[in-house]
C-alpha cells in the first residue's frame, strides 16, 4: 500500500441528511497543514457528523471532501493518514493499555508494535499502568490512552471529538502541548469542543456551527466566548 500525502483538507458544499433530518448543511471550509481548526457549537450542531465524514466513516449526501487532490474513495491509503479520537473511546476494556495500543499499531502497519505502544504510554504518563486492563482505568486515563491510539501512526489529519472530556488540569495541559506539537510537526488538527477557554489561544481557525450550518468562520480567533454568545445565541 502506497502512503498518500496531502497538505490540506477541504469540504465543498458538504451536506449530510439522516432521513429528513439535516445534520450538516452545505458546509464549505478548508484546513491546511500546521494549523488547528476548531469546530464550536452547541449539541446537535453537526460537529460529530462532520468529523465522521472527514474520517471517511460517513458519506456526504451531497458535496465533496478532498484531501489535497484525493477524494474519499482513496480507501486504505487515505485512512492510513487519518487519526480519529471519537466521543466513544474505541478501546477494548478487557485488553491492557499496551495491548490496545499494540493492536491498533499493528493494524496501521507499524513494525515494532510493542515499542510504539510503550512510547505512547510514556507520553500519556501511563507507563506504570501499561499492563493493567483498560476497564480498571478512570475516564481521564482512558481518554489519554484513546488519544494515543488515535495518534499512534503519526497521522497527517487528526480528528478529535471533545478531546478534553474527563481530563484533569495536568492532563489537559499535556494535551494542549501535544496538540501544539502536532501542529508544529505539520499535521492538520480538527477538533470539536465545547471548552472555549481551552480553545482560546490554541486554535488557528474556528468555525461556529449551529443547526448543521457554519454561521461564522474566524482566523486567529480571540474572544471566543463573546463571539460564541453573539453568533450562536442570536
Amino acid at each position, binding site marked *: 500500500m502506497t502512503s498518500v500525502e496531502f497538505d490540506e483538507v477541504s469540504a465543498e458544499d458538504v451536506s449530510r441528511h439522516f432521513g429528513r433530518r439535516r445534520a450538516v448543511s452545505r458546509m464549505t471550509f478548508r484546513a491546511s497543514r500546521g494549523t488547528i481548526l476548531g469546530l464550536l457549537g452547541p449539541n446537535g450542531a453537526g460537529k460529530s457528523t462532520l468529523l465522521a465524514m472527514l474520517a*471517511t466513516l460517513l458519506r456526504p449526501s451531497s458535496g465533496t471532501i478532498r484531501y489535497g487532490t484525493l477524494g474519499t474513495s482513496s480507501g486504505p491509503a487515505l*485512512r*492510513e493518514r487519518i487519526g480519529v479520537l471519537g466521543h466513544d473511546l474505541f478501546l*477494548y476494556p478487557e*485488553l491492557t493499555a499496551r495491548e490496545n495500543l499494540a493492536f491498533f499499531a499493528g493494524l*496501521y502497519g507499524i513494525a515494532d508494535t510493542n515499542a510504539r505502544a510503550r512510547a505512547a504510554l510514556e507520553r500519556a504518563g501511563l507507563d506504570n499502568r501499561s499492563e493493567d486492563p483498560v476497564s480498571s482505568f478512570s475516564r481521564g486515563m482512558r481518554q489519554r490512552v484513546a488519544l494515543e491510539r488515535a495518534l499512534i501512526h503519526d497521522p497527517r489529519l487528526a480528528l478529535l471529538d471533545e478531546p478534553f472530556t474527563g481530563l484533569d488540569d495536568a492532563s489537559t495541559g499535556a494535551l494542549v502541548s501535544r496538540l501544539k506539537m502536532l501542529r508544529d510537526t505539520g499535521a492538520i488538527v480538527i477538533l470539536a469542543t465545547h471548552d472555549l477557554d481551552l480553545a482560546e489561544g490554541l486554535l488557528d481557525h474556528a468555525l461556529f456551527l449551529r443547526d448543521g450550518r457554519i454561521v461564522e468562520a474566524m482566523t486567529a480567533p480571540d474572544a471566543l466566548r463573546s463571539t460564541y454568545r453573539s453568533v450562536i445565541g442570536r
Partner: protein
Amino acid sequence: MLRAILLIVRKDLTVEVRSRELAYTTLFFAVSCVLVFAFSLVQEGRAAEGVGAGVLWMAIMFAGNLALGRTFERERQSETLRALMLVPAPRPAVYLGKLTGIVLLLAITEAVLVPLVALLFESALLSHPFWLASVVATGTVGFAAVGTLFAAMLVRARSRDVLLPVLLYPITVPVLIAGVRATVAIAQPEFEVDVVRFWLMLLIAFDIVFITLALWTFEPVMTD
C-alpha cells in the same frame, strides 16, 4: 491483509480468554439444548434414526446465533467496530478476522457437542471422523459467513437481537439441510460415501458463494 486478519483473530481470542463470556454462554446453551432434546426424544435408551444429527445441527445454529450477537455487541459497546473501519487494512480483512474468530469459538462448542450427541443419542457420528469433521467445518463456516455479515450490518440497529435470527435462519436453511443429511448419512450403519460427498460439495459451494458475496458487500454496507 493477512496480518490484519491474524491481529483481529488474536485480539478476539485474547478478549474471550479474559472474559470467557462467549465460550461459557454458547456451551451452556448448546449443551442445555442437547440435554432437553435427549430427555424428550430418547426412549428406552434409543432415539429415532437421524434425530441425533438434527439435534446436533440445531444446537450448532442456535449457539452460533448467540455467539454472533454477543461478538458484535462487544464491538458496539465501545464503538470499536468503528475503529476497525478506520484502520488502513482492507475492510474485508475485518470481516475475515471476525469470521475466523467466530468459527474458532464454534469449533470449541462443537468439540463438546459432537461426542455428547453421539453418547446421548447412541449415534455412530464418530465412526467416520474425517467426513464428520469436514461436514461440520464447512457447515459452520457457511453459517458463520452469512451470520458475520448480518451481525456487522445490524450492529447499530435497535432491534438487532430480533432481526439477526430472522435474517440469518432462512438464508442458512441450505446449510441446515445439507449438514443434517450428510451427518445422517455418516451415522448410517452402511456408510454411503457418495451421499456424504454430495452434501459436502453443496456446503463447500455455499461457503464459496456466501464468502465471496460477503467480501464484496462488506465495505459498502459498513460505510453509512
